[in-house]
């Protein structure tokens, strides 16, 4: 189980860490509306992939479930769950609800 504030905190914390690593201080100021990819986005494609990989492990540590953020359903949505920070937080809640703890 992951609440909305917890999910948002996971994303923002990870973005801040990534910002320090990549030398992009603006990532430490991210909020729900921060655009993650596309034109004028905070991350390039490599950064987005890194964020997803790191977040999957963060979710596992926080909730004890193994999740796959880029599943078929997520990739086929008209509005990508990776477009903005808030949408990504919603997506985390969704995948955690549908996941079962690792055997």
């Amino acid at each position, binding site marked *: 189980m992951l609440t909305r504030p917890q999910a948002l905190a996971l994303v923002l914390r990870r973005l801040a860490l990534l910002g320090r690593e990549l030398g992009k201080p603006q990532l430490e100021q991210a909020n729900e509306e921060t655009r993650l990819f596309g034109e004028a986005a905070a991350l390039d494609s*490599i950064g987005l*992939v*890194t964020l*997803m*990989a*790191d977040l*999957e*492990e963060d979710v596992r540590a926080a909730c004890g479930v*193994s999740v*796959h953020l880029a599943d078929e359903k997520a990739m086929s949505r008209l509005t990508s769950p990776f477009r903005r920070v808030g949408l990504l937080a919603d997506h985390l809640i969704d995948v955690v609800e549908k996941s079962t703890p*690792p*055997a």
Partner: protein
Amino acid sequence: MSTAVITGTSRGLGRALAERLLAEGWSVHGFSRSSGEITHPRFTAHAVDISDEGAVRAAVDQISDPIDLLVNNAGAASLNALLLTPGSIAASLMRVNYLGAFHCLQSIGKVMVRQRRGLVINITTVAVPLSLEGEAAYVASKAALDALTKVAAAELAPQGVRVIGLGFGPLSTDLTRAVPGFKLAELDARLGRPQGTSLAQAVDFIIQHLPAASSASGTIAYLARL
């Protein structure tokens, strides 16, 4: 201590490589459909069909150590003229040789990206650059793997993950058991290896490529004269 994941460790090159790394102090996780016969305190056998994405993910989830090396070795072969190759065989080869490696690279690639380091070795074949006749479906599946090697190298390099391909001619394994001896001898002579290539020589070639300085990411190197 370093940790490796090797696919196809129940026999052949995968098993020989696993035994060599264990002897050199590595911990090894073997992904195979059958359990094989490696018994070593630092060897963990995972019964997994690598063409099953969920099964690969579940197996990777069980590994808690950092993963330094992935060797996508598991492979299948079928020697048939193009016009006589059943579509089911072509699909099966693609599932094991390409899709299986894809699933392992994706799951373990994520682990390596989190670590910001790692090495992936995809085992390929001289049959691709030689466009060997009679192996169309096999060559196509390995060509797909070679393409994956190059794209993965470009995508993962910024996070410190190196991806290379290492290719061999005929090895004395189950994959070549059905090939007539004179055909193998002809190919070995063409590759500048008239004595053939032993499993020990192939393992040595892989070990030589573990240091980062040995080959740039995206490189595909062959133990043969092409």
